[in-house]
């Protein structure tokens, strides 16, 4: 399954809700305000870095740059993808769940 998280972990609990219920081996895409969870140096960065052991975590590049961040600002182990990559992730995984 591909899990989508689109809210900041500092505003909403959807990142945690997702991390608690995603099966190991799932992919997680952080997009829209969810990109803030992908940044190194925040209070959630360790949690997200650790989560990369269980999940393939991605962040949507256009949403990063819209908010003033480069891929270099992202936690090691989180991969930056563009919209083509987003589409490819939905092909690769047999279902998509949005955490709203």
């Amino acid at each position, binding site marked *: 399954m591909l899990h989508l998280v689109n809210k900041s972990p500092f505003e909403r609990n959807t990142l945690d809700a997702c991390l*608690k219920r995603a099966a190991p081996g799932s992919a997680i895409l952080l997009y829209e305000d969810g990109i803030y969870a992908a940044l190194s140096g925040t209070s959630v960065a360790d949690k997200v870095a650790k989560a990369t052991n269980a999940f393939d975590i991605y962040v949507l590049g256009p949403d990063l740059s819209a908010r003033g961040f480069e891929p270099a600002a992202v936690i090691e182990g989180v991969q930056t993808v563009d919209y083509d990559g987003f589409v490819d992730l939905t092909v690769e995984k047999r279902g998509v769940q949005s955490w709203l």
Partner: protein
Amino acid sequence: MTDATEASGASVTKRFLYVNRKAPHGTVYALEVLEMILIAAMFEQDVHVAFLDDGVFQLRKGQTPSALEMKDFSKTYRALEDYGIEKIYLERESMEERGLTTDDLVIPAAVLERKDMISLIDSMDVVLSA
């Protein structure tokens, strides 16, 4: 499990999951997703409904929103069974965090451990989140 997503042909049965995470009344999602579930019941799919996090509050009995001139749709959950929607699950951890027990619920529903909710979610073809 069968990957029905690749099936072709006249009749496909998919595993649908409606995920409810929001409390009732503060937003419209609980009401409108219930309407969606009732319509989905007519399509002979394998429908599951999960209540997680604040979504468990949707099934709390004794809701009286009439003082706010809002609709009490909690009794509509009782119709789900008549529509053939029986796979209704609440997550145990979500209930416990919120001090809810099965005695507080407007309908009988299966309570799943989080680890079983993880497997349930992962098995779905279509997930509709409100």
